[in-house]
């Protein structure tokens, strides 16, 4: 018995080895949001936001900023500015300035993914303008701009009006052939932060964007959705605006690849959407099937037209954000796909968008 006690005491002594790895919560500066900007002199401006835990303090966050050559160098710089040990395990959002995003984010994503303390769930967001300035600015009543942006994006991504873009999605689409990554864009709108749209990347470079209003239509054609809302403006009837609010969307996206005889491809991009009508200001009677079918047709025409325009824009800038290439790849043999330069072929292919709309219900009023 004594022997056992002795051994367990000796084993306990091993725990002293953990002293060097000690982390005390109050002494940690847990970075929640970081922003990265490319400066004129080709230096990198890193701004990090650390929440202040002290309940007696009126200031809710501490901002650290450094002009450096690399991301991790910034952390060394930060620890010379603060009494806290700066750690990145609680990072939630990384904001990239538009200039940096246009120059390419590969190296920075690589650094962040390499660090085992950073999870795959960290968001990537492009900021129109200077990301550091946006993060530094205070937006009342929000005490912490970083968290404000993160929560807003989280909520919007849940409603599918912008894509959820974490390191996982970004590096998945970036490393796959036949699809390009996308991220949301935010911008400073005076007294609010505004979601500005969706940034379309070519490889790791931000090339073009689509507006926030088209975000949900983009979502419908990028993936299957289980939630979402869309407001559709159907023009005017007797000088009155006709708007349909289509909600609780359920969407099934399909891509069909046709091989034409001369070796070209024709793509059928189709979305089959179900949803309920929450608002309708037109003349059709929603409880009559014929009218409802007419309305469904109008909605589908509207969505198809917008999607077709979006595809045109993507082909013009040569970004395959819908992931058409993935399906073309899967329809080819390995040799054929390797021989094909998708970037060259993509802008020329014929893409036809189709939308099938079903109104499931129309509220509790006929």
């Amino acid at each position, binding site marked *: 018995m004594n022997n056992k006690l002795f051994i367990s005491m000796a084993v306990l002594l091993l725990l002293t080895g953990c002293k060097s790895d000690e982390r005390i919560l109050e002494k940690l500066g847990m970075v929640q949001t970081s922003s990265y900007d490319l400066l004129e002199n080709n230096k990198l401006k890193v701004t990090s936001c650390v929440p202040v835990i002290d309940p007696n303090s009126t200031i809710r966050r501490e901002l650290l900023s450094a002009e450096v050559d690399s991301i991790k160098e910034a952390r060394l710089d930060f620890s010379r500015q603060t009494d806290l040990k700066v750690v990145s395990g609680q990072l939630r959002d990384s904001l990239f300035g538009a200039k940096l995003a246009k120059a390419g984010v590969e190296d920075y994503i690589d650094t962040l993914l390499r660090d085992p303390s950073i999870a795959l769930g960290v968001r990537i967001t492009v900021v129109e303008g200077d990301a550091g300035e946006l993060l530094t600015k205070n937006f009342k009543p929000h005490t912490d701009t970083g968290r404000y942006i993160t929560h807003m994006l989280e909520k919007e991504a849940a409603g599918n009006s912008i894509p959820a873009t974490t390191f996982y999605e970004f590096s998945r689409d970036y490393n*796959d*052939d036949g699809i390009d990554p996308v991220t949301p864009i935010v911008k400073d709108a005076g007294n609010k932060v505004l979601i500005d749209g969706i940034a379309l990347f070519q490889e790791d470079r931000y090339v073009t964007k689509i507006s926030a209003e088209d975000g949900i239509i983009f979502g419908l054609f990028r993936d299957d959705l289980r939630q979402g809302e869309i407001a559709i403006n159907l023009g005017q009837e007797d000088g009155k605006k006709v708007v349909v609010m289509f909600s609780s969307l359920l969407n099934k996206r399909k891509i069909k690849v046709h091989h034409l005889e001369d070796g070209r491809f024709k793509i059928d991009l189709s979305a089959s959407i179900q949803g309920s009508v929450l608002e309708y200001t037109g003349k059709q009677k929603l409880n009559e099937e014929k009218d409802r079918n007419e309305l469904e047709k109008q909605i589908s025409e509207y969505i198809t037209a917008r999607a077709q325009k979006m595809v045109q824009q993507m082909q013009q800038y040569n970004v395959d954000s819908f992931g058409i290439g993935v399906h073309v790849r899967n329809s080819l043999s*390995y040799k054929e796909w390797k021989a094909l330069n998708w970037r060259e072929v993509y802008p020329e292919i014929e893409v036809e968008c189709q939308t099938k709309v079903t109104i499931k219900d129309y509220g509790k009023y006929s």
Partner: protein
Amino acid sequence: MDTLSFLHRLSVCLVDLRLHDREKICAFISDALFPDYESDDLQVCYGHPSFSNTYQRDLFDIQNSNAFFWMMTWMFLLLLWFFPAFRWERFTPFILQGGHDQVKGGIEVYAAFLGYELSILLFPYVEKTKKSMAAIYVGNAMLSLSYLCLALICFGFFSLGQLKRLLYPVLDLLAYIQLPFIERLENLLYGFFLFLILMTVVMYWWAAEEAVKRIVPKLKTTVLVFVMMAVSYAISFIPKTLDQVNVWITNLGYAAVGIAFGFPILLLIVLLIQGKARSSHE
């Protein structure tokens, strides 16, 4: 007052029941899943694919393996988390294309299935019934199934290019899970993997002990085990970098594959020679 005391008694009963019947419930569940095998059989053999004996209780603590079994199997449920992001499109129809040396890769992968060769050493301890052999098969089948599930999820969740760049995809899989009350589960769950490694290590140490005991029969078992553990611990200090560790693992894997195939063949040859010698004597 009466109701209270009743409730109290009921709760005590329930707690009692839970404690006592925990094993029964475990047994019931595995019986329901695999009616042909005794629950202990299954749990032990899953704890280590090659280990399958209910009869040699002093060899291994059945209770522990019970706990280890459930400690591992519940983690299968975590795979459900990846279904929403899972896409068949990412599999690509290119089967066995663009790789390197498939034979070499095959042997490297094969090392992950090793362990069954230890069952050779179990023969003296096991009653020669069909059931004990079947338990070995079930153990290996469950291991294969878990690898298969993990591989399928990895291919559908990560893209191929991403998978090529990830050094530890399972770690990244676990890091992706975010429960409302806890995040970064991988740090916690990797602790569970240590138990599995512990079981494997103990089995191999036991096998080594069995073998060395034959070579040096005079040595006391406790001394032998201590020396063996000290030696294997010391060896772990030789490789300094992660790449070196990988080289060691690969080479030891080759050796183990060699043993797994060579050992039975060697035994058969010995048996043949023995048989010949015997028949020529007669």
